[in-house]
């Protein structure tokens, strides 16, 4: 974990340098890159550790999730949401679910988020004028729910603390491949799979019917 902590320290130091010396452009970047390179060179064996990658991806995921909510520009928020979905895909990779990871990128980051970008571009929201006007109830409610959620998360992590995070040796051969997943979808879960597809078609037809009053 030395490498991860070191890189985060470098990142924080870099942000501080940029914040206090805004006129300096190249010195902080060069220093940060040099420090990162030295760190990687000294602790390169960390690169093969799953904990290092889990920590790095988790750090980026949390940072991007915070920026989705806090950034005033909707387009930037959408971009951080894409980054966040990439982090989720990388988590799937760490859990040996390769196929799921690629599907996550194709469907969420590749297809659904394009529609988000499309809508934000069409509406051309400059800033979140309307969204700032939250009522007191919404604010205190959000705070209360946030505390409850944090409690649940803390409880879940405490409950699992004795179990190791990652045991690839307990997975059976072919876990997470397209063949395995397809087999399960068309045998054990075939009803749920077909029901979901019918639901999606119904939703699609319904959307077209609502949007297009005159069908000619």
């Amino acid at each position: 974990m030395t490498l991860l902590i070191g890189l985060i320290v470098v990142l924080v130091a870099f942000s501080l340098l940029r914040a206090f010396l805004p006129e300096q452009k190249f010195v902080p970047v060069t220093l940060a890159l040099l420090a990162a390179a030295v760190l990687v060179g000294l602790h390169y064996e960390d690169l093969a550790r799953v904990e290092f990658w889990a920590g790095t991806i988790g750090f980026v995921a949390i940072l991007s999730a915070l920026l989705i909510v806090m950034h005033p520009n909707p387009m930037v928020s959408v971009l951080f949401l894409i980054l966040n979905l990439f982090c989720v895909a990388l988590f799937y990779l760490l859990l040996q679910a390769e196929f799921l990871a690629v599907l996550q990128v194709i469907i969420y980051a590749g297809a659904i988020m394009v529609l988000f970008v499309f809508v934000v571009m069409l509406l051309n929201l400059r800033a979140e004028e309307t969204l700032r006007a939250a009522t007191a109830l919404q604010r205190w409610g959000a705070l209360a729910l946030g505390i409850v959620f944090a409690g649940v998360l803390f409880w879940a992590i405490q409950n699992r603390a004795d179990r190791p995070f990652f045991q690839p040796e307990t997975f059976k051969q072919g876990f997470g491949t397209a063949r395995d997943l397809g087999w399960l979808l068309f045998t054990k879960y075939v009803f749920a799979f077909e029901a979901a597809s019918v639901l999606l078609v119904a939703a699609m037809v319904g959307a077209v019917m609502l949007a297009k009053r005159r069908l000619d």
Partner: protein
Amino acid sequence: MDGGLQRVIVEASIKIGVVFGVIMTTIAYMTWVERRVSAWIQDRRGPNRVGPFGLLQPLADGIKFMFKEAIVPAQAHRAIYLLAPAILFVPAMITFSVVPFGPPIRAFGFEIPLQIAAVDNGVLIILAFSSMSVYGIALAGWASNNKYSLMGGLRSSAQMISYELAMGIALVGVLMSAGSLRLTDIVAYQAAHGWNVLWQLPGFLIFMTAAFAETNRLPFDLPEAETELVAGYHTEYSGMRFSMFYMAEYANMITASALAATLYFGGYHVPGLHLLRLSETLAAIVQVLAFALKVGFFLFVYVWVRWTLPRFRYDQLMNLGWKMLLPAGLVHLMWVAFIILMGWA
């Protein structure tokens, strides 16, 4: 930790370096090829002043681009505006990492696959990253704060989503015949059973059409459409960032050509090569050259089509994608399934 990790890092770095260099050089010379071939098709001379046959023209262009002023429009969203060319260029390069450009070779006592990332879900990774390139165009259009750019970006996002479907449907045929998502397995299947194009010609045509749309090349370059939208999504760009859009376009073309060669034309497979009884290294070199030749042919097709067909109208583009390519792809899928079911493939 033994030497395994170091070996992986060194091997990957060398392969990435070589492939990156080859692709960048090809990109540079594709601009020259495009201009020379267009001149040839239109009975002109084309760039022939810088070096013999104008061969140093890409170098001169590169120097010119670097010394041009990089302008950021006053009302543009600066960060996204500066980032957009990179968002377009990087996925184009990443996609090539899963393409096998030669058979595994033995060197220094190791077996080295001639492929940067020998992953199980190669075909899906290609689809995943080729769908990323839409963000580059859409964001460039949006961040420029220009009506024409915005129109180009909007068109691009709708176009890419539409043609991804057709491309995916065409690819399913290849996956079904090879029974694997690995590109090396697909090449091996074609080496054993004949190239896919021989019995999946409709699939190949659908794939190529969709690839033209995904790379924003004529006849589908509607995000750019200089007769309607000035220069579409990159109207406001100048200097090196402008040239990065072109580099991304050519990188996408190279990847699409490599895919067409790999999925339908046997990849690095050369029919009858084993009859010559070449040594393993020599055979590998011949196969890599054969792959380069196939990719080069498709790159030429790209240029050839561009200077032959006029641009589609936007409604024609949508009709072609949704009402022709998609149903045709589904019918073709039935045909492939039927052939496999009868055991003819």
